[in-house]
């Protein structure tokens, strides 16, 4: 039975359902309990599960991230909330050095079933230190998985998959999407990690989007349709594993590809997709893959500058026209 709920409610349902089903699951992070979550994702969970399982922490990301990782070595399955992925940088050693490598370093003795989740990407005039898009930085590390839901339905299904996964899973949410509503089934279902979905079918150019950029792609595709260019939008949903097969299938059909990635361009997911597409679709490409990224500058505070810095529909339209030789 589906009904419309907010993205944040979908995340909450995923966590609550999994916590009811498995006592090893707990939620830990800054302001997740008493405060009901800095972004109200965990609202009401303290009442249901109590302070032993919904755990407020000090402002101490390295400490509580490491605590969560350590607890997996004895079989627990924590959900660690970062108020923002920007704050995860101070926990980088724990989340990059320990979580994804524990299984390997211990020769298979200790896995690390943990979920790190929180807001990723520009919130809105938060300035440079609070506007991190960590996906390209973190997805570089083998041993972790990374999901980036774009809508409430996928948010619930992917987060449930993540909580059940036996590997560390980084769940990247967007502050700008938490309030959007969408159809979400009640009760248990999962969206598999590593499977993209075709957000919109099209014939002339493939647009590869991740999380919030899917909406930018949508706006661009509407405009381009008026110009007679039919875009196929892929919502990747997962970054690691990346569903390259879905991209390849689409590019073989359209012969053109534009990747829209809200992290910086240098050594990014966008460049990874481009490299893979060039390798797998070499004889199917009519132009090299075009990429739309954040501008290669720190995120500015000023509203107009920030909008100019982010990927947006205008930049995507320009890239599609250029890649299809319609510029």
């Amino acid at each position, binding site marked *: 039975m589906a009904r419309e709920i907010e993205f944040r409610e979908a995340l909450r349902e995923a966590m609550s359902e999994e916590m009811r089903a498995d006592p090893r699951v707990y939620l830990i992070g800054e302001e997740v309990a008493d405060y009901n979550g800095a972004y109200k994702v965990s609202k009401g969970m303290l009442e249901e599960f109590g302070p032993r399982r919904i755990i407020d922490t000090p402002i101490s990301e390295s400490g509580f991230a490491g605590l969560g990782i350590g607890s997996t070595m004895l079989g627990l399955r924590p959900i660690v909330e970062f108020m923002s992925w920007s704050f995860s940088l101070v926990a980088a050693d724990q989340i990059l050095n320990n979580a994804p490598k524990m299984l390997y370093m211990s020769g298979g003795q200790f896995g690390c079933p943990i979920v790190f989740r929180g807001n990723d990407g520009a919130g809105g005039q938060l300035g440079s230190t609070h506007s991190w898009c960590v996906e390209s930085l973190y997805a570089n590390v083998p041993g972790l998985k990374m999901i980036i839901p774009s809508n409430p339905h996928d948010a619930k299904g992917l987060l449930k998959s993540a909580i059940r996964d036996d590997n560390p899973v980084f769940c990247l949410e967007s502050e700008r999407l938490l309030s959007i509503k969408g159809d979400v089934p009640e009760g248990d279902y999962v969206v598999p990690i590593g499977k993209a979905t075709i957000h919109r079918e099209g014939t002339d150019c493939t647009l590869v989007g991740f999380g919030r950029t899917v909406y930018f792609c949508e706006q661009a595709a509407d405009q381009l349709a008026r110009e007679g260019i039919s875009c196929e939008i892929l919502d990747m949903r997962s970054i690691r594993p990346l569903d390259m097969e879905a991209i390849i299938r689409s590019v073989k059909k359209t012969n053109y590809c534009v990747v829209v990635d809200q992290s910086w361009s240098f050594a990014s997911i966008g460049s990874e997709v481009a490299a893979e597409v060039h390798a797998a679709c070499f*004889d199917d490409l009519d132009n090299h893959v075009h990429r739309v990224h954040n501008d290669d500058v720190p995120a500015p505070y000023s509203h107009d500058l920030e909008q100019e810095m982010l990927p947006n529909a205008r930049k995507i339209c320009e890239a599609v026209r250029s890649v299809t030789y319609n510029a």
Partner: protein
Amino acid sequence: MPIDITMPRLSDTMETGTIVKWHVAAGDAVSAGDVIADVETDKATMEMQCYDDGTMVSIVVNEGSPVEVGTVVAVMAEEDEEVGDAPSRPAAPATVPAAAQEPDPVVEPPVVPVEEPDVIEAGGEDVESKPVESAPAEPHLTMRGHVRISPVARRIADEHGVDLASLTGTGPMGRIVKRDVLAAIGITKETAAAVPPAAGLSPASPVSTSISSVPATPVDSSSTSMPIKASDIPAPSGYGLQPWSEPLSGMRQTIARRLVESKTSIPHYQVSMVFDMDPMVQMRTQLNEQLAQHDVKLSINDLVVRCCALGMYTNPLMNASWGGDCINYHGDVNIGIAISLPPERGGGLVVATIRNADRKSLRVINQESKELSKKARTKGLTIDEMADSTFTVSNLGMFGIDNFTAIINPPNSAILAVGAVQQKPVVRSGEVVVGHEMTATLSNDHRVVDGATAARYLSSLKELIENPGMALV
């Protein structure tokens, strides 16, 4: 058991070490943990420790000599062991190259001769040093000999045999892009979506027009009627026919040029005749039964070729050529046979020559026809194998064609278009019976062959074909 003491690795990057001082001498008692020497490594001077209790037997590497990690530098005997039991060791192992042990420790890096720089493409700065026969400047479309073209455009062009040189690229820097190739083969954006992907793209063969003018001869098969089977007809693709444009192959260009020339410069006319084929069919059946043990199987076409050749003796004008101001009579009777080529070799047709067919037995004609046909369809024929024909036979009987006209293959003066041998009701001795008939149509160059001449030749042929025993000898 003597214990070897080896040069220890004292840092993660150490490859060789030098013992700068021995703290022990042969005969000294040592204990595990004792520092027995100082070793200079790449990083620092380090202590070398002893791992066992016992007595030093010999110092193998003296102070000041660099040796590789792992080299035996000393030998000791274990605690309870008699020193004398340990065999003495030769000094100074040669594990480090002799040069490194020379008093002058500065080892110059080996002098590597500077290699000649690679030849740089046209336009490089050292253009003067290049040989004069270097390639001329490339056309603007190319870059270092390669056409600027997108991968998918190249693929589609390859699949459709589009000559890249004929295309103008509309992409950046003149890059040929997909739409340029699609335009060249007649596909627009509107129809592109309906184009099946690569494998399904082979268009209907455009050979059809030339088949009616210079038909192919199935020389390697029986010339009895061989109708096309339903299974040979491709199933409908669901897409229907697509407008398509196929660039010309070299062969097709030749065919086009020569036949236009022939049809526009030669005053053609045709005469036809129906032949009673019962005797020849009967004889061929008998002959093939007898020849089966030699693995020979004559075709009707072999017999027709032989008859055409023999017919020249009484009609030498049929074996002549228009010479502008003269008519050239040929001394040899060389019968050309038209051979159609399979699509994988680009389709089209060639005319192979059976030289001196008048002097060759049926068996030889049969064998040559088979070989030329096979070679034409696989490796291709040499110029010699296609040259010097004086008369041509074209046979479409195997397609069930009963009657057609052919275009003269210059410099011949005539070509015989042979239809299928068909069973039909015929009148024999005033009665309608079932018999075999074949229609042949002779196209003639009126400048050389008049109607009466052509008629006489057909009559001669009829004489031979309907009394095929004459063709045997």
